[in-house]
């Protein structure tokens, strides 16, 4: 050990930390499968944060571990440690680096949020209409189809302890949400009694259903299958059982479902 200069050790440690962090960021598989157009955006963002977090974790915990091993009190030594009160450049460094990291994450999150459709872009005349004001709460049209109406609109209402899905144009009321894969879906979310919250983990999307105010979620499902809809806002004793499903059909199948369920 004595022969290897400290700077080389630091360099090796740095490379190792970087490699491990990048690997963990890419291969953590902590999140459930992705089933909406927004999901990969959120996941990539999460993975970047996991990579940065792993690096910081390793560096700080590593420093703690090294100090408790290297600088432990030895028997019979009753003296004090080194008299170091601070190191201005070092302190600037560890203020500025985290500062840059968080500002970077902040900008990245604004970007992801815009991509997800969180910020209604206003380059179409339609956007100037007062109706659009209301739709600013929640996730709206993607920047790529800003201003275009959604191809399926469903009114969702939460009540103790169920979700009700109303396909107004088609005269369908259902207890489950059915959509087609690739379809641009807009949910108008409301609540009848107390606050509920609409969450589909595989979509990575969540929005509270607030009494007295309509909120929105607009998404495109990217994978057929059945996914859970979970209420995540405490809404009473049976909050935990307020579960439903969203069924993502292939387009033809979805049309069949529409026909079968239409009230004449």
């Amino acid at each position: 050990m004595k022969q290897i200069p400290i700077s080389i050790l630091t360099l090796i440690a740095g490379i190792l930390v970087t490699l491990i962090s990048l690997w963990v960021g890419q291969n953590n598989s902590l999140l459930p499968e992705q089933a909406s157009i927004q999901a990969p955006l959120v996941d990539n963002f999460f993975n970047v944060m996991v990579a940065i977090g792993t690096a910081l974790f390793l560096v700080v915990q590593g420093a703690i571990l090294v100090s408790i091993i290297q600088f432990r009190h030895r028997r019979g030594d009753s003296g004090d440690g080194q008299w170091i009160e601070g190191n201005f450049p070092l302190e600037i460094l560890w203020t500025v680096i985290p500062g840059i990291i968080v500002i970077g994450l902040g900008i990245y999150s604004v970007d992801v949020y815009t991509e997800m459709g969180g910020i209604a872009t206003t380059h179409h005349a339609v956007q100037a209409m007062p109706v659009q004001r209301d739709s600013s709460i929640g996730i709206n049209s993607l920047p790529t189809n800003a201003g275009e109406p959604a191809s399926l609109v469903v009114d969702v209402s939460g009540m103790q302890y169920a979700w009700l899905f109303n396909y107004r144009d088609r005269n369908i009321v259902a207890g489950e949400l059915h959509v087609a894969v690739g379809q641009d879906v807009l949910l108008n979310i409301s609540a009848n009694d107390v606050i509920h919250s609409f969450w589909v983990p595989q979509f990575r999307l969540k929005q509270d259903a607030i009494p007295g105010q309509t909120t929105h979620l607009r998404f495109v499902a990217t994978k057929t299958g059945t996914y859970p809809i979970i209420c995540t806002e405490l809404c009473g004793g049976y909050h935990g059982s307020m579960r439903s499903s969203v069924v993502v059909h292939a387009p033809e199948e979805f049309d069949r479902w529409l026909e079968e369920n239409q009230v004449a």
Partner: protein
Amino acid sequence: MTQLETPQVTDSATDRNLPKVWKWYDYFTFNTDHKVIGIQYLVTAFAFYLIGGLMAVAMRAELYTPDADLLDPNFYNALMTNHGTLMIFLWIVPAAIGGFGNFLVPLLIGARDMAFPKLNAIAFWLNPPAGALLLASFLFGGAQSGWTAYPPLSLTTANTAQSMWILSIVLVGTSSILGALNFVVTILKMKVPSMKWTQLPLFCWAILATSVLALLSTPVLAAGLVLLLFDINFGTSFFKPDAGGNVVLYQHLFWFYSHPAVYLMILPIFGIMSEVIPVHARKPIFGYKAIAYSSLAICIVGLFVWVHHMFTSGTPAWMRMFFTISTLIVAVPTGVKIFGWVATLWGGKIRFTSAMLFAIGLLSMFVVGGLGGVTLGTAPFDLHVHDTYYVVGHFHYVLFGGSVFGIYAGIYHWFPKITGRMMSEMWGKIHFALTFIGTHLTFLPMHLLGLQGMPRRVAMYDPQFAPINHLCTFGAIVLGISAIPFFLNAVWSWHYGVKASDNPWDALTLEWTTSSPPPIENWVELPVVTCGPYDYGSRDRNIAEIPQTA
């Protein structure tokens, strides 16, 4: 070594016919001695901690299986609500600010008492009735709407219990406002003249920042809760949507207080860390100024981040973005503290006392909690995990790892000063090992639960999550057991522990210049500050002063 050189005789205890020492029954009276009040706060808080802990174990027992088969779901919600409320308002805040703050601040600055001793006693005596009211609310079903008490749910479930809950919080809120006022005046006005501002112990800086924060934010919470009380009992409709009320308004009022409240909990703990680590690492604190200023920075920025609790609520896009950025910025001063403590360890001669173990444990767990917090601060990711077990895992890392470990570290560190006796180090280490393992086992898997799709505040969940929940429940049992060695150790040592010397850790702050326990009015002659509070290793300090137990 700080010294008692120049005799500076002020009116000492005997002049006012005070007894020499307090008797046990003095602790059950309206006593105005800051040390008595500190101990009253600590003991009461520990009692509530035990009760809150039992509630937690009951909840984890229920969550062992996916169905609500052990407890009635409404009762589960009442336990969950009161567990959170007790832990925040009747455990951490009173223990960290009331307990440690009252006991230590006058001793650390060389004062004989707090600025307003009677006010201080009043502030403490608001707590027991508040706790009693909270527990009595179980006779009326218990408040069931979570510690956040969001309307309209809080307007419709268990009205009597919810009203009692509100009154209880308003009482503790009043207590913390009175306490905060007292701390501000005490710290600004009463330090010994020989102490420079740069020699003010960091715990005092932390308490100062905490108090300012409490003064600014607590009234807003009280306002929100009083409006809620009116809605429940007197037919107003501030928060009733069907009568023109606005439910999101409540959330703003609530979080404007309750987000800073998390700093109220953690800042005093940061203060404890800054006192404990240098002593046991035998090194000056690294970056005194940076640590002091970062408390103030956290206090200021902390007032502008509350909406990160409402990203999925009725908040427009600009708010989601503005508060993402401001939230992320708080991570910087927090990081400065963490790095400062790690650098304090570096190059020290670390003694692994129980106090130090808990302090290092806190450091390592706060890193995890802090990183989780940064992810939650970003709106796009928070949309996925908000109100899930990811959040529960995160805040228990911060609150259990960050606060409870700090309080334990403080207890092991100051027990000799408070009681005049040492605690058993061996049992302290067993306590630490169990707590450390238990905390990770209980709260680490919760992050995964949340990411995968388990919401929080539920008595029943999807069976696919059962295996991970088993782990959490085992962890909670270990945590429950971990408290036993601590309580036995504390009670036993208080009576039979080895007698402590005045300064068993060979520390430099002023509280160690008086006897253990300190006499009424703290010093016969006020101490004179001759060196900084953390000057370990500087000049030729008397090497013979190794820990001694008389």
